[in-house]
């Protein structure tokens, strides 16, 4: 367990920066990894994004103003990098925000061929359903459903009001429920 104030001081001091940064990576790597992985699905894409996140953290340490928790700052960077990545690789996503028909089969095939996915059929369908959500709504859903994050913390990370987050989550759950009803 780390002391946040002490870690921030060590990160900002050139002599202790690298050692403190390694501590930060060890502390947060898994949380950030799964945050990203649930959005982009594949391990390779997640690894790329996560590396970029930590590079951005390293480069931005001096600008970190300590007006938020370290975890909030890290999650924010991870979410932004993930959204940027998804926008850049738009042809790979199946979000309905484009107005196109979702390529649910494509996602299903991708999951079935992924050696790092061992979900059963229902879990696979759930992941396909989640991928039909627009990226930001997908983030809200993942953070609430899988990470059981409080709305207050999500609001700080995403910069969205608690009311809007609740509405977004409610809509996401409704869409996923409808998705499963259409399967039956």
């Amino acid at each position: 367990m780390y002391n946040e104030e002490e870690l921030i001081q060590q990160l900002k001091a050139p002599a202790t920066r690298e050692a403190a940064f390694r501590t930060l990576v060890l502390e947060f790597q898994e949380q950030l990894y799964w945050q990203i992985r649930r959005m982009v699905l594949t391990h390779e894409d997640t690894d790329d994004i996560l590396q970029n996140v930590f590079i951005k953290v390293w480069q931005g340490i001096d600008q970190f103003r300590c007006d938020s928790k370290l975890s909030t700052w890290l999650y924010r960077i991870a979410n932004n990098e993930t959204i940027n990545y998804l926008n850049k690789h738009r042809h790979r996503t199946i979000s309905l925000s484009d107005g196109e028909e979702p390529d649910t089969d494509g996602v299903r095939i991708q999951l079935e061929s992924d050696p790092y996915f061992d979900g059963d059929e229902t879990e696979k369908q759930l992941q396909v359903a989640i991928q039909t959500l627009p990226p930001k709504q997908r983030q809200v859903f993942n953070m609430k459903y899988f990470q059981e994050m409080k709305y207050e913390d999500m609001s700080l990370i995403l910069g969205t009001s608690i009311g809007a987050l609740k509405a977004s989550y409610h809509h996401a759950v409704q869409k996923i429920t409808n998705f499963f009803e259409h399967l039956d």
Partner: protein
Amino acid sequence: MTLPGSHRNPFKVPEGYFSTLPERVMQSINQEEQAQKLSLVRRRRSLFLMRMGIAAALTGVFIFAGMLAHQHRNAVTSGADAVNFAQQLDLDYNDETLEYAMLDNNDIEYYLTVAE
């Protein structure tokens, strides 16, 4: 609210991924910083060469203007006057510009090496 499927995580991670990630991240950071340093050196070289090019062009302009001014004020009556033209230039030119124009290839190579 419960949805079909569980909260179980169906995704897996390659073995040893998290234990090696901090080192890989530091390597990526070092590579990124090296790339930025190299980019900076290249930008400085380009700027230096651009300045030299501008200086050489300006020198040519000044000399040409000087020639026109000289012809306008004093008719060149002999070859000796033309030869002495450069020494008698009364233009207000940039000393640094002339100095740049007098650089030869050895000087250029030296400055580029020093810039590294």
